[in-house]
């Protein structure tokens, strides 16, 4: 039944009852309304009756007054006694108000009202127009005819009496009519009341009847049905008629009854089944009781296993439990001890009822029954017939009748073996063995775990020992960055004790503020990826010591994942010394480089300051020289790092102390050390910095070494400069002093030989010899000076574009007369080459020298050939002769100055041995090479290589300079 239908049915019944109630209320209301109307009319009628009675009473009263007035007047008139006027006076006072009242009381009938008004007017008229004037005339005694007056009185009163009579008659009629109307109304009201009452009662009864029929009787039907159900009559049904609710109720009841009936049928079936199962259950319970004992055994066994975690006590516990369960008198347990590897066999860990001294310490696979059980991984049970059989494995004091060996297995590896024995002749049953196998399987796991625990603890102890004795500091932090390990070396290196450090965030404890975000990012990145390229690589970093110092360290980070969480193991090594050593090395190298590269002392001095200050992070440096005479410090040069500023160090205090102590001195912001050579102090180097850290021993050693090195360099450079100066002076002197007499000799010879024809033939010849030798001497002086300059590194080239082919041909032509003089075959083959960058005059000097030598050393009728060509980007000049040659052993010395080959000296061929030295210097200044190949007696070949593509950047030609003038 849907809820909508149920709701509809409910509303149906309620609606009916409501509408019936409303109908009842309306009918009763109408009845009461009619009754009220009737009562109201009745009351109006009663009021009318009462008023009519009042009017009548009032009219009668007034009539009596009028009578009193008349009798009064008449009595006084007749008797003239005042006594008769007393009623008159009383009536005279009350009559007019009564007349007024009557007029007011008689409004409903116009005729009556007119009569009342007339009565009032007549009364007033009687009193004022007649009675009172009569009385006054009587009193005054002026009444003339009393009879007339009596008649008048009588007439007037009779008139009033007639009106009263009519008024009262009419009024009595009205009153009578009113009374009968009131009675009618009262009767009608009674009838209406009785009818209404009866109708109401009837309606209520009808309503009650309807209610009982619509609601109660279906319920009663259902109650009756339910009562029948209760008595067991499940087939009972009720009528499904009546109002919607009643029908619904009936249907529901019938459905329920139907369900009950079918439920009862099903129950009866199930009941039968249950009874069948009951007996089965009873069997099972019996079986379970048996198993329960075994489970309890297992449980107790398991309990004992978990009670103990140490390997040996656990083995004892296992063995005694197994003995109890198996009712074994003696037993032994062999298992893999901590140090044994799998497959090695097993060691005696526990025994019961046996002397351990008599038992073998170890069991090997295959040895004895226990060994076989161990090796074959299966249970072996043995029964011995004779009671006196002694089993060697058990020790000779025990005679066992039954023994069983159960291997301790974990997965398919053996952990050990348990051997049990009974002294009585009571073999182990199959079920007992099964139980034993189950228990030993458990025990194997527990023993294996215990062993693993022991190994783990041992390893942890080992690890701790390794960590504690490690040379390096060791710090471990968990995933959240909390320190979990901190070895004594870490305490020593970082200043924090273990108990202070453990639990703190390592970043806060150790990292400088500036590095912390980077470490956090690294940690997050690592945890996200689980790897990083910096892992297991030494990384250099900075940590903060407890006292605030920053330490350079090298760290080796090895993260280890354990139970899903990472632990960062870090070995930390102080590398400040190493870094310092590196800095010192760098400083030393920088100084070495400056000393090697500097072209002069002036160039070296600021660079030395930079090398030392820059390497050691002292941003400002000063160099003073000690004046030998005045013993004062003289500022030579200063240097400051690009971003450094601040005051220059004064030449007092620290530098003077450095002079006095002859060693490095320093204060908070400056450091100075003397430069000395062979104990002679030459100057002082000073540096300033924000903070000068007191130099350690290696630093002091470095500074002393630098002081010595720089000092020696300065001294050497100064000596060299002095030597240079002396040499220059010498050469200037030589140049001047040799050339001055030569100038005279050659100059005057020129003048003398101006007119050779004026001279005798002999003089002319002799003077020519003088002239030739003077010029030779001049050339020699020039060569000597040239070589000296070359050795002083002062050979300067005047670079221009040089056409080597033209130059070669010029040299050849210049030498041709000499060649012809010796009848030499003189040939030249010069290729056209691109112009090279070079010094024309110097290259010509080389050509002249080589060609001149070739002619000079070649005997008459020999051959000299000159060949110029290009090869591999180089100009190659070959000068070949068929001369005396050079001994092989002398060829290597050929380019030394003043060296002369024996073949030349032997033949007294003139020369001083400078030509080739000069040629080699010139060729090398052009970036080229010169080489010789020769065989004694077979001639010589000189080969010159000059690069063609060398840029012309040697020196720019100086104005007016013509270089060396060797000969004219």
């Amino acid at each position: 039944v849907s809820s909508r239908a149920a709701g509809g049915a409910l509303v149906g019944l309620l609606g009916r009852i409501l509408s019936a109630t409303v109908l009842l209320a309306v009918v009763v209301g109408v009845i009461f309304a009619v009754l009220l109307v009737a009562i109201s009319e009745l009351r109006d009628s009663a009021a009318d009756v009462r008023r009519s009675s009042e009017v009548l009473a009032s009219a009668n009263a007034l009539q009596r007054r009028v009578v009193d007035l008349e009798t009064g007047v008449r009595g006084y008139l007749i008797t003239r006694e005042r006594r008769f006027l007393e009623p008159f006076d009383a009536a005279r006072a009350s009559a007019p108000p009564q007349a007024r009242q009557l007029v007011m009381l008689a409004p409903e009938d116009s005729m009556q009202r007119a009569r009342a008004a007339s009565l009032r007017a007549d009364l007033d008229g009687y009193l004022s127009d007649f009675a009172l004037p009569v009385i006054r005339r009587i009193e005054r005694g002026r009444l003339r005819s009393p009879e007339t007056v009596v008649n008048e009185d009588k007439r007037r009163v009779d008139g009033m009496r007639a009106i009263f009579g009519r008024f009262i008659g009419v009024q009595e009629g009205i009153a009578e009519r009113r009374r009968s109307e009131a009675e009618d109304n009262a009767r009608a009201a009674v009838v209406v009341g009785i009818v209404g009452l009866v109708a109401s009662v009837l309606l209520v009864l009808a309503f009650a009847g309807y209610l009982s029929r619509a609601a109660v009787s279906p319920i009663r039907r259902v109650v009756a049905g339910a009562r029948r159900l209760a008595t067991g009559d499940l087939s009972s049904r009720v009528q499904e008629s009546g109002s919607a609710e009643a029908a619904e109720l009936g249907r529901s009841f019938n459905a329920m009854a139907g369900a009950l009936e079918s439920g009862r049928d099903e129950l009866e079936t199930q009941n039968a089944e249950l009874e069948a199962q009951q007996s089965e259950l009873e069997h099972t319970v019996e079986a379970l009781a048996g198993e329960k004992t075994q489970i309890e055994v297992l449980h107790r066994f398991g309990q004992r296993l978990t009670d103990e975690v140490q390997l040996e006590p656990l083995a004892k516990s296992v063995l005694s439990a197994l003995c109890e369960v198996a009712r074994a008198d003696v037993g032994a347990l062999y298992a893999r001890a901590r140090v044994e590897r799998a497959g090695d066999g097993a060691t005696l860990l526990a025994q019961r009822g046996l002397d351990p001294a008599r038992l073998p310490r170890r069991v090997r696979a295959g040895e004895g029954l226990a060994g076989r059980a161990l090796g074959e991984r299966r249970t072996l049970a043995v029964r011995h017939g004779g009671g006196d059989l002694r089993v060697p494995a058990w020790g000779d004091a025990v005679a066992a009748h039954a023994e069983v060996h159960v291997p301790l297995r974990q997965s398919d590896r053996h952990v050990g073996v348990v051997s049990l024995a009974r002294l009585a002749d009571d073999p182990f049953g199959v079920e007992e063995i099964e139980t034993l196998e189950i228990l030993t399987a458990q025990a194997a796991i527990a023993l294996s775990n215990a062993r693993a625990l022991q190994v783990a603890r041992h390893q942890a102890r080992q690890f701790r020992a390794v960590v504690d004795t490690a040379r390096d500091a060791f710090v471990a932090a968990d995933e959240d960055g909390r320190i979990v390990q901190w070895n004594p070396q870490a305490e020593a290196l970082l200043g924090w004790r273990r108990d202070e450090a453990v639990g703190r965030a390592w970043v806060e404890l150790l990292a400088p503020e500036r590095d912390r975000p980077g470490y956090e990012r690294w940690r997050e990145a690592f945890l996200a990826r689980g790897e990083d390229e910096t892992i297991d690589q030494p990384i250099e970093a900075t940590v903060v010591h407890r006292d605030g110092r920053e330490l350079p360290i090298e760290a080796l980070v090895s993260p280890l994942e354990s139970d899903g969480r990472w632990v960062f193991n870090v070995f930390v090594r102080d590398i400040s010394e190493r870094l310092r050593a590196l800095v010192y090395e760098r400083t030393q190298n920088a100084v070495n480089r400056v000393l090697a590269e500097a072209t002069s002392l002036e160039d070296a001095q600021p660079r030395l300051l930079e090398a030392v200050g820059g390497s050691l992070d002292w941003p400002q440096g000063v160099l003073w020289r000690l004046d030998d005479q005045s013993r004062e410090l003289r500022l030579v040069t200063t240097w400051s790092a690009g971003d450094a500023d601040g005051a220059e160090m004064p030449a007092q205090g620290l530098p003077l102390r450095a002079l006095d102590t002859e060693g490095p001195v320093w204060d908070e912001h400056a450091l100075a050390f003397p430069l000395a050579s062979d104990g002679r102090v030459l100057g002082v180097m000073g540096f300033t910095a924000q903070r000068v850290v007191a130099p350690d021993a290696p630093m002091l050693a470095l500074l002393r070494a630098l002081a010595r090195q720089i000092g020696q360099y300065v001294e050497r450079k100064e000596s060299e400069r002095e030597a240079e100066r002396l040499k220059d002076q010498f050469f200037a002197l030589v140049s001047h002093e040799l050339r001055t007499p030569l100038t005279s000799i050659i100059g005057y010879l020129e003048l003398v030989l101006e007119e050779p024809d004026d001279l005798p033939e002999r003089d002319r010849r002799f003077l020519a010899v003088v002239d030739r030798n003077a010029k030779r001497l001049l050339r020699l002086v020039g060569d000597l000076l040239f070589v000296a300059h070359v050795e002083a590194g002062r050979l300067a080239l005047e670079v221009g574009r040089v056409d080597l082919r033209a130059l070669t041909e010029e040299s050849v032509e210049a030498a041709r007369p000499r060649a012809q003089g010796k009848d030499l075959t003189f040939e030249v083959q010069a290729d056209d080459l691109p112009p090279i960058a070079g010094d024309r005059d110097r290259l010509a000097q080389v050509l002249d020298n080589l060609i001149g030598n070739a002619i000079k050393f070649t005997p008459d009728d020999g051959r000299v050939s000159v060949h110029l060509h290009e090869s591999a980007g180089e100009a190659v000049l070959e000068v070949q002769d068929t001369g005396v040659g050079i001994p092989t052993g002398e060829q290597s010395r050929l380019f030394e100055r003043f060296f002369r080959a024996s073949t030349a000296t032997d033949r007294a061929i003139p020369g001083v041995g400078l030509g080739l030295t000069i040629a080699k210097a010139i060729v090398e200044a052009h970036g080229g090479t010169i080489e010789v190949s020769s065989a004694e007696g077979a001639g010589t070949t000189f080969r010159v290589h000059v690069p063609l593509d060398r840029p012309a950047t040697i020196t720019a030609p100086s104005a007016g300079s013509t270089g060396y003038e060797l000969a004219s």
Partner: protein
Amino acid sequence: MTATVLIAEDDEDILDLVRFPLERAGFAVLACRDGETALRLGVDERPDAAVLDVQMPRIDGLEVTRRLRADTGTRDMAILILTASVREQEVVRAFEAGADDFLRKPFRPQELPERVRVVLSSRS
């Protein structure tokens, strides 16, 4: 008009070697053997040209040249420097001091008058 040439050379032989070809070529010659005298003669006599040796006692030829160039009266004198040095630096120094030309020893005596004429014409 005969041009006057001042010669300063401390070596007497060379002094004659300079004087002879110049006189032969028609120049009037004022000769002296040291720098001080050369300077005085230069200022007092206002020669047209001077041939000065570099190396002389007390005041060398380069210094004489500088002072002559500094004096308004002798500022425009034609000056030829004579030296026995083979160093190029010497040449540079000569020109820097204000010399018009430069002659290295040993020299050809016959060449001298022509060189003097050249510097004179370049000055006039």
